[in-house]
């Protein structure tokens, strides 16, 4: 079959009442501006890392929002934290802070002093 570079997503359903949203709620406390996100995808469109890989920051934080945390940390490691996403976001979401905090929550790490 010809490869068009995209395919049809498989149908799937997620039962949000069954997923554990505690990490997401914690994230909202740390980055309240994330509540404003409308998933427009501006962040992904401007992403520097996206130009080299299939890293998709919109997809990643959408998964996080649904409580699907699998392999998200590996995805987020691709981010270079350049901040273009933060600058283009039409809703003023602090994406750099969001990315750092998502990574810290997922790996359960914190700043190290001394």
């Amino acid at each position, binding site marked *: 079959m010809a490869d068009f570079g995209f395919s049809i997503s498989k149908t799937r359903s997620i039962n949000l009442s069954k997923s554990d949203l505690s990490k997401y709620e914690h994230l909202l406390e740390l980055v309240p501006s994330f509540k404003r996100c409308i998933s427009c995808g501006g962040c992904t469109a401007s992403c520097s890392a996206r130009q080299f*890989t299939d890293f998709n920051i919109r997809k990643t934080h959408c998964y996080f929002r649904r409580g699907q945390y699998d392999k998200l940390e590996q995805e987020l490691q691709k981010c270079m934290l350049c*901040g273009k996403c933060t600058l283009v976001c039409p809703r003023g979401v602090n994406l750099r802070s969001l990315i750092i905090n998502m990574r810290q929550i997922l790996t359960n790490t914190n700043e190290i002093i001394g």
Partner: protein
Amino acid sequence: MENFSPFVLPFVLGSIALLIICLYKYIRWIRQFDRLQKKALLKNIISIKFLPAIWEMFSECLLHLRITKKNWRLGYMHRSIAFGWFLLILVGAFESRIGTKSDFHYWVAIFYRYFHQTPPETHTAWVLTQIMDLLLLYVLSGITLALFKKIHSRILGMKRATKHTLMDRAIRVSLWGIFPLRLLSESASACLYHNGGFLTQTIGDLFSPHVAEVLEMPFWTLYSIVLCIFFVLLPFTRYMHIFTEVFLIYFRKVGLREHTKLTGFSKFELSSCSRCGMCIDACPLYKDLGITDVQSVYLLRNLRNLEHHKDIIAAGKNCLMCHRCAEDCPVNIDLMNLRRISRDKGELDLTDNYKYLNKVKSFNAIGRVAYFGGCMSHLTPSITESMQTIFKTVGQHYWFMDEDKSICCGRPLLQQGFNNQAADLRRKNTDLIINSGAQMLITSCPICYTSFKKEYKLSIPVLHHTEYIDMLIKKGKLKVKKGDLKVTYHDPCELGRGCGIYNEPRNVLKAVSTLLKTEHEKENSLCCGLNLGNTVISLEQQSTIRNTALDNLMAPHPDVIATACPMCKKAFKHSTDVNVKDIAEIVAENIEKK
């Protein structure tokens, strides 16, 4: 024993304790230097660099010239206490040495008026007595100012003074007590033995001899006890800066620098902070947003004691990294680096995250200059387009490194404490640049510029585009016409305070337009609020900071606001009716056609 009285004991014990604790701390910190710092120290331990260090120790630890330059009232206060006390000790030692016939002990110098119970016999002794009184008066004038500062800091030109801990307040009270008690003790002795100078004798004559006889011993005892309290508390409080700054100045002169982790050298820096609070008044987060608990003084205090971990992390994150406080710091502590250290991401900071960049190949750019727009310039394409127009006009072949795919320079990661990840990006970019054979690197973004200039070890010159354009105009390669445009210039934090590039952008602007002065410029310029250093403040708070900067730029009613940073341009662009342009754009519009 001659020349001894039990009241000197607190002083003697206190001073011995002070010596032992300080030596213990300093030796421990020197042992904690990292490999590079030890190497630099061993290499330069005896070198000519010691001479400028001695001058700096004198001018900063005693005369406080840097503070005086910023605020002369504060400068006078610090100088009178530090330099006055130093001279009191020096002249006192000399006076007591030549005046004591038998059994000289070092405490005799401190309590000389008590042990030397005769009026000055020689002219020299008389002059020395008067000098000692003059010096005491000098110190007391500083103490008086310090009291005023405590009551109302604005009298001394400080909007907000530091909120001190209990220990710091306690030792401050003891410092304030030392000199009035010295005055009273010496006056009481002067009343009895007529050995005072113009000040102590005059006050002494006010006492009746009976009162003086009763009060003399309590005064001297109290004086000794207060000295003891001051000495014992000193190593654990902010007054540790008195001795530590001397070492810090020497270490800096022999080439020791902060690294990415807390080392022994950081301990010296942290203890050199006198918590004067000048960083608070300078901070835009305080000036515009009223945030008062994140400034360098508090971060350093908590880092020094490594306590209140949550506070360190919270305060560490909430900073624009605009370098404004570092500019005002009278001790020149590397505040930005200490803040980066407090942001160390630990286990999160991995290596080999960016393997996907391996496939990016270098370009053969021999005979060309490399142009690095920077991530942010991709969101302000007018800047990169203008730069390309300029390259083409002067016939300069160039390689637009990040024309369609941009690798970040690594500085945003570094600022957030991802040292390893930032190093990975630096390695990749260095490979690309060196392998290309380009002769020069020009960048449009001050963040990238700082990174390439300070953190990369490139063998080719690195220029910000304003430097490059200034060079072209000076060499006559680029002919520009001077329009009737009136502009104000916004100094980007990273370019100005970060790298000291103030004149080149101004030269360029003067060549193409009329440059208007603003109230806050050069070192005092205001941050646009979008600095990548901060990940905590909200969009609304950023806008407040931006508006202050914008008001400053709009005040002289310019036709165009010029800046040299894509971030600053973005910050201002949509918040004002006045046109906001990068210097490159203004130049590209004013190129003289042949």
